[in-house]
């Protein structure tokens, strides 16, 4: 599986598209493939703040529920209600229209915890059956 080169990734299979002040966060195509049909997504409210690594919502398939983890600290400024309303849309477009939350970045994020596309690709290959 190949992942967009311009994004950063976490070992929990979230992707991050950040500038100096704001960031968009979603889950990768690998996460979606592992989950199966996405039937329900729970996202936080605008204004909620999260530290890096904390759970900000859940993504649910027909069989399992997984927590969504913040790659970096920030305050939620926008939530993708379209994705909540039509969770299956993530399956065809996890990166562009499949973003889940937009945040205002807090402080200076720890870049060491984030993977680039090639490193994430390697990580996924090592952990696949």
């Amino acid at each position, binding site marked *: 599986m190949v992942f967009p080169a311009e994004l950063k990734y976490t070992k929990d299979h979230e992707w991050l598209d950040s500038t100096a002040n704001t960031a968009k966060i979603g889950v990768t195509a690998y996460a979606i493939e592992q989950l*199966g*049909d996405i*039937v*329900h997504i729970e996202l936080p409210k605008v204004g909620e703040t999260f530290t890096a690594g904390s759970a900000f919502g*859940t993504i*649910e*398939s*027909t*069989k399992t*529920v997984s927590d969504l983890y913040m790659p970096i600290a920030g305050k939620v400024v926008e939530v993708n209600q379209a994705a909540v309303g039509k969770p*299956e849309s993530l399956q065809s477009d996890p990166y562009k229209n499949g973003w889940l939350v937009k945040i205002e970045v807090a402080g200076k994020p720890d870049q060491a915890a984030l993977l680039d596309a090639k490193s994430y690709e390697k990580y996924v290959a090592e952990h696949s059956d």
Partner: protein
Amino acid sequence: MEPRKTPLYEQHKILKAKMVPFGDWLMPVSYSGVLAEHKAVRETSGLFDVSHMGEILVNGKGAESFLQKMTINDVTRLKDGSGQYTAILQPDGGMIDDLIIYRLEKSRYFICANASNTDKDYAWLKQQSASFQDVTIVNDSTHWGQLAVQGPKSKTAVAALLPESSRQALEHLNYMEIMGVMLFGGNALLARTGYTGELGYELYLPTEVIEKTWIALLETQGTSQIQPIGLGARDTLRLEACYLLYGSDMNDTFSPLEAGISWATKLAKSDFVGKAALVAQKSAGITRSLMAFRMLEDGIPRHDMVVYQGLEAVGKVTSGSVLPTVGGAGGLAYLDPRNVGVGAEVTIDIRGKRKLARLVEKPLYKAKIKG
């Protein structure tokens, strides 16, 4: 312990199925996706590998009276080539397993048992048969594989497989009936039964011919007629039809009256194991009854989530999921029929949040088994 594989394991790998452990077994949970597979069964047809299920033979002149004593349903109503849904109970009325029993001939009965309970069922029946004459019990599971073909196009799919001489018989096979067929040189049994709420068939096949049969079913039709279906969709299909899953919806602490299968429980027949307990329970009044509910708010109910009436915890979800055909989500829970009934609203604790649900009539999806 190494998980057990059905004879179709290699076929599932070829089809790139997602495999999961299911009890002792490694089974396909999905191929193209649970929702797509669910839809395929409701609209065209689907093929399930259910070879993990158990097959127990009860033979002999004493087989009928033995089974009449061991099961809740009336075995004397069976004719050659017919089957019935039933259960075996503990003396205290708790369910050991739910089963389908087919009478092949007067002294030959064929039982389909749940995969997780086959050894337990066999041990129980064997032990109980010691005090009966002329009855032998055989756990024949290792010799049989099982396929289910379910959906509006299932009859066409099965007919394409059968020799011409058997197709006439297929036309006349009524719901719950069973017939013998030769497939690829093996003696197979074809029953008009299923676990999806659609017209469908279950094929019991000698393990030597199951792979050929699986391939033939998928190849003689295209994917617009029949598709492989995994356990994920099997669960959403059966839940919509409100068919029960042992282990989730019943176990040995629940009686068939509580589980909602009094229709299969013939209290008027001669004595059977567990009868006294059921009669006592019925006269005292049932205090737990398996009821169906649909979510009114977002959230998917799952096994063991707590059900509330106001602030009071009144039961737990036994089975819950999305309902792809019916819409939304829903499930089953044991609730006190003296306090709630159809139309009542309850809340369900879904990961810390209370979500509203309404009790509804069963089934959630009306079965089309008559075809």
